[in-house]
């Protein structure tokens, strides 16, 4: 009965999970609230990658996984996929975004104005070590401007299109349930536009940055100019069965338009995601900009970057290498040993 004695599997699994959870201790609603309030950008990032906009669930996933981001996103995705799709909201138009931050690197000033909004871009990155010495860090109060910036602005590319500098993509004529949904159908290539943008929206931030950065450094043809970067809130407008359209609430979104000279016109790259995540949007838009005509097998080719920036898939496959592989390994060993024995046999034969 020697085999039976080795059957510790079930117990070992349970105890190893307990060890993992012991580090986080008790999780209650207060902890979730604390995560939500203290780490809004992390919550945003996780919501974007999970393609599920729910601050409480995202904060809970972070608390439950102790901040293991890939695990947190997987938790949310696995929850999300079992939920029914109740309806499809109206498309969000750029000029209807309630904008907090909106900048353009292409022009000094733009119609609607540059709005700096919240950013650490110009902060000196000095660690507030005083906090550890017992002096709390209290942010200085924001002083509102004399004249508030307009909350709604046109897109920069709209002005460029008017001046024949850029060809805007034709608006999709699909509505509601006809819009391809990546979470309900497989990604195939050449990819549908909706699938491409959805993939980028839920791509893993670090992965998009790595490949986007490769394109920026020169493994892509187009050097991006940030035409417009926005952090905003979008109304989720849905239709009541009686026909009335109403806003079910607002979600934070970020989006980036990048351009580069392509002949006599500007090429346009675009990406948007839920939550505020500037690095991801600029990188994703850069990949989008570079993807047209990119050679197969290069980092800027659609199939290459969409497959390899899928965080749940890539992280899952990476950690699966921890699983036993002794059958496959044994099979390779057998072929290697046999080939080696054969080569020794050949060497033994005298040279004629």
């Amino acid at each position, binding site marked *: *009965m*020697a*085999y*039976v004695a*080795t*059957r*510790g*599997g*079930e117990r*070992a*699994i349970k105890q190893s999970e307990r060890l993992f959870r012991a580090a986080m201790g008790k999780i209650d609603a207060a902890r979730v609230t604390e995560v939500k309030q203290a780490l809004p950008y992390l919550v945003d990032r996780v919501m974007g990658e999970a393609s599920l906009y729910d601050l409480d669930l995202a904060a809970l996933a972070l608390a439950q996984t102790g901040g293991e981001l890939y695990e947190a996103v*997987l*938790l949310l*995705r*696995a929850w*999300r*996929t*079992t*939920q*029914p799709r109740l309806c499809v909201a109206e498309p969000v138009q750029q000029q209807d975004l309630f904008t907090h931050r909106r900048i353009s690197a292409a022009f000094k000033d733009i119609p609607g104005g540059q709005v700096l909004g919240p950013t650490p871009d110009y902060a000196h990155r000095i660690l507030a070590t005083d906090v550890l010495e017992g002096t709390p860090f209290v942010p200085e109060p924001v002083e509102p401007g004399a004249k508030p910036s307009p909350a709604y602005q046109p897109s920069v590319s709209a002005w460029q299109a008017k001046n024949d500098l850029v060809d805007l993509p034709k608006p999709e004529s699909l509505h509601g349930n006809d819009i391809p949904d990546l*979470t*309900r*159908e*497989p*990604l*195939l*290539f*050449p990819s549908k536009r909706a699938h491409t943008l959805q993939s980028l929206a839920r791509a893993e931030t670090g992965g998009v940055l790595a490949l986007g950065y490769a394109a920026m450094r020169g493994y892509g043809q187009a050097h991006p100019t940030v035409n417009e970067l926005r952090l905003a809130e979008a109304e989720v407008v849905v239709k009541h069965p009686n026909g009335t359209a109403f806003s079910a609430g607002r979600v934070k979104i970020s989006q980036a338009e990048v351009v580069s000279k392509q002949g006599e016109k500007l090429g346009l790259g675009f990406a948007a995601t839920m939550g505020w995540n500037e690095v991801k949007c600029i990188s994703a838009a850069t990949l989008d900009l570079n993807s047209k005509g990119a050679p*197969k*097998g290069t980092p800027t080719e659609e*199939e290459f970057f969409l*497959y390899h920036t899928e965080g*749940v*898939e890539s*992280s*899952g*496959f*990476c*950690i*699966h290498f921890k*699983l*036993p*592989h*002794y*059958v*496959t390994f*044994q*099979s*390779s*060993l*057998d*072929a*290697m040993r*046999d*080939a080696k024995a*054969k*080569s020794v046999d*050949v060497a033994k034969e005298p040279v004629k």
Partner: protein
Amino acid sequence: MSLKSLTKPWQSMSYGFLDPSAKRELRRKMLKSVAVPGCQMPYASREVPMARGWGTGALQVSLTLLNPQMCVKVIDQGADDSVNAASIRRFLARVSGAPTTLDTLEAHLIQSRHRIPEEFLREDQILVLQVPNPEPLRSVQPNMSIARQMHADADYGRMWLQLYEQIVRSGRIMQGASYPSMVNGRHVMTPSPIPRWDVPKLNMSKHLTILSAGREKRIFAVPPYTRVEPLVFDDVPYQVEDHGALTCKRSGAKGFFMNEIPQDDGTSAFEVSDSEYGVKSIRQRDGEAVNLGGTWYKHGEMPK
């Protein structure tokens, strides 16, 4: 009639975890894959509460097929007690109410990572194989859309060339597990990383085999009584692992696929890879009445 009488009480989870729309898609794709043996069918592949690459494709198939009347067995690299097999078995039982078993003969559905049990499978059994990489052409063409076109054209020249080059360089075909195989004379498939030992078990077998890759979102099948032929040259016969003469040091079972266990003295000992077959062999040796099924291999050889 009240609304309440027409609806079911709210539950936090659908039966079998997956929602009905996901199961419907899987059923359709399984039927398609049975209709065109060995051809990879793309499917949405929902996230499940397990990491990608850990059997999520096979898990979705099992979750769709299981019902409380079916008995389920889960193996990983031949073993029922491997931690991931134990975890999947626990999850399947928890969400489907299906009873579990370790005995191949008792199971109606077997989810397996990289092994086919040594005992014969019957017509009333379904084997669901976990597949890390569904594309046999990946090593000669990493781009999935080009590879898809090559399958459509039955353009397997590069595959043959790769096997030929191995013979030229090493004196034999070096492919370990996942040996590329022609299904029904039309589609080349990867049998998943099962050892070469197991590939002949798929040929004209009585049971249905469904292969599902969750991360790569592809499903394919070998229906019962379908030809599965490893790609070989007429003058270079197919070679399974040289395990036919090995003996399991625990059970004494001889002529099956083995795990090699390195020993302190520099030698190797061997244990039957199909762990439950090993357990049953031990019990039989110890005088227990055990139902040991017929095996594909006899005396370490696959009968022609």
